[in-house]
């Protein structure tokens, strides 16, 4: 299980209704079902992922977030989760608005482009960072809207989004202090618990 996902689960009320946007193969929803007994729904567009998620016994809807989420009623979920997908949607700000309309609370995780390795890569090599963590080249990456911890918090401020909690995942599990103190430099993954 990815580290960011393990971090998230403590913010999820047992037995609550969870919508997971870009749920992949459903590993996290299954985990939440086991650990938190949530009633979960996942959104996904990859066929193989959908099949795997169905075979886990999950409720999965094939739907492209970029085409909108208008079919989900206001405040119909307790928590809407979007893990590592914000940077891949066409309009991250609109998706955030939609998430906050659909869910009482939302949890967003994204790769922090402000991480020192990205900065070093860009400043010394002059090229877009490619790493184990972000393995794509600029021309074929699904990640079209990279942002930093600072960028995200600025957007929240502009939109009047309340940050209930922030958590970060550092390079290794042994670096929580650095990432916690200087998240924009040392967080590889930023995790936000937000509401309106």
């Amino acid at each position, binding site marked *: 299980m990815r580290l960011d996902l393990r971090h998230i689960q403590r913010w999820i009320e047992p037995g609550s*209704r969870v919508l997971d946007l870009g749920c992949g193969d459903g590993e996290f929803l299954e985990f939440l079902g086991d650990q938190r007994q949530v*009633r979960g*729904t996942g959104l996904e567009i990859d*066929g193989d992922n*959908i*099949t*795997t998620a*169905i*075979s886990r*016994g*999950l*409720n*999965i*809807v*094939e*739907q492209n977030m970029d085409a909108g989420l208008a*079919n*989900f*009623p206001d405040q*119909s979920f307790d928590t809407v989760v979007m893990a590592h997908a914000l940077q891949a949607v066409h309009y991250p700000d609109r998706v955030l608005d939609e998430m906050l309309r659909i869910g009482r609370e939302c949890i967003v995780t994204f790769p922090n482009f402000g991480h020192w390795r990205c900065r070093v890569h860009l400043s010394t090599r002059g090229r877009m960072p490619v790493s184990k963590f972000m393995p794509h080249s600029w021309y074929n990456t699904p990640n079209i809207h990279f942002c930093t911890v600072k960028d995200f918090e600025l957007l929240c401020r502009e939109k009047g989004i309340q940050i209930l909690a922030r958590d970060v995942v550092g390079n290794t599990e042994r670096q929580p202090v650095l990432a916690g103190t200087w998240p924009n430099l040392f967080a590889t993954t930023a995790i936000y618990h937000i509401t309106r």
Partner: protein
Amino acid sequence: MNTPADSHSVGIVKPQVVHFDTPLPLACGRDLPAYDLVYETYGELNDKHSNAILVCHALSGHAHAAGYHNAEDKKPGWWDECIGPGKPIDTNRFFVVSLNNLGGCHGSTGPSSINPDTGNPWGPDFPPLRARDWVNSQVRLADYLDIACWAAVIGGSLGGMQAMRWSLEYPTRIRHCIVIAAAMKLSAQNLAFNEVARQAISSDPEFAGGHYQGHNTIPAQGLALARMVGHITYLSDDAMASKFGRDLRSGSLEQGDDGNVEFQVQSYLRYQGSQFSSSFDANTYMLMTRALDYFDLAREYNNDPVAAFRHAQCSFLVISFSTDWRFSPQRSREIVDALIAADRPVTYAEIEADEGHDAFLLPIPRYVNVLTAYMQRVGASC
């Protein structure tokens, strides 16, 4: 290869008939005094009677969904691709029931049956039926087979409409509802196609106002034409292009050649039409297309599909096909959206397929995978 001896085939099956003589109250206000239902079963009912699957057929279907009637049969049942040992609807695990709907022409009581009041075939006087009437008759079959709750009710197209109706009318008797290439109601375009089909039949002089049995005629021409129209709508533009293109079956379009030209697609449609008209009853076709037309999931729920689906207690799987323009993915998404708004568990897959509406009967790999994965979940709840 498809043969009865194939280890993934249910093998030789025998249709069974059950007679009911408790009158069935119908949506039209009339009662059907007594009737037969023909059905087939595949697999074994478990001790708890919890592994039963009902398969509802579409417009021109029948009870013979899987296996063969005898060793010489060239073709297996209409959904043999999906029903059998090791197939998505795995008969090693499930007890599958498939029936010919009331009003049909493959053994169950319908317009070509004898009306006990007159001693003559019902013909056009057979009461009009709706999906809910089929569901009510299927409930009696379930009672007869001692099945208190279906593990799943599954249907494609018109069959999907019956499956949805089950979920609303008998919410405690269905655990999973599988709706494939269906809609909550027909569009005006769909109604229009059905009307053309019925006009083709009724304008055939041999139809005789539906009393052709008494006249010893068959409106073969009209029925074939109706089927040709229907068939075009079941295929996609791409499927027709790749299957036939503009290929000629006979003649030539060379200048100076005035021979008769026949395109492959013409010959194919005529063949389909004539095959159909020799195996299907015209009054049944009228009745089935009307049942399709009249279906409106939410009519009795204030025309609110969300309110309707709040009556359901089962989980849903909804599947659509990208090039299906008769029951387009948009129609399936309406079902899914209503289920989401009603807070009902739903899984939805939109399958890329070139084959149009017909895709629901074909072994398209992703479709088979999705159905298989979901049926595992159904099996886990048995």
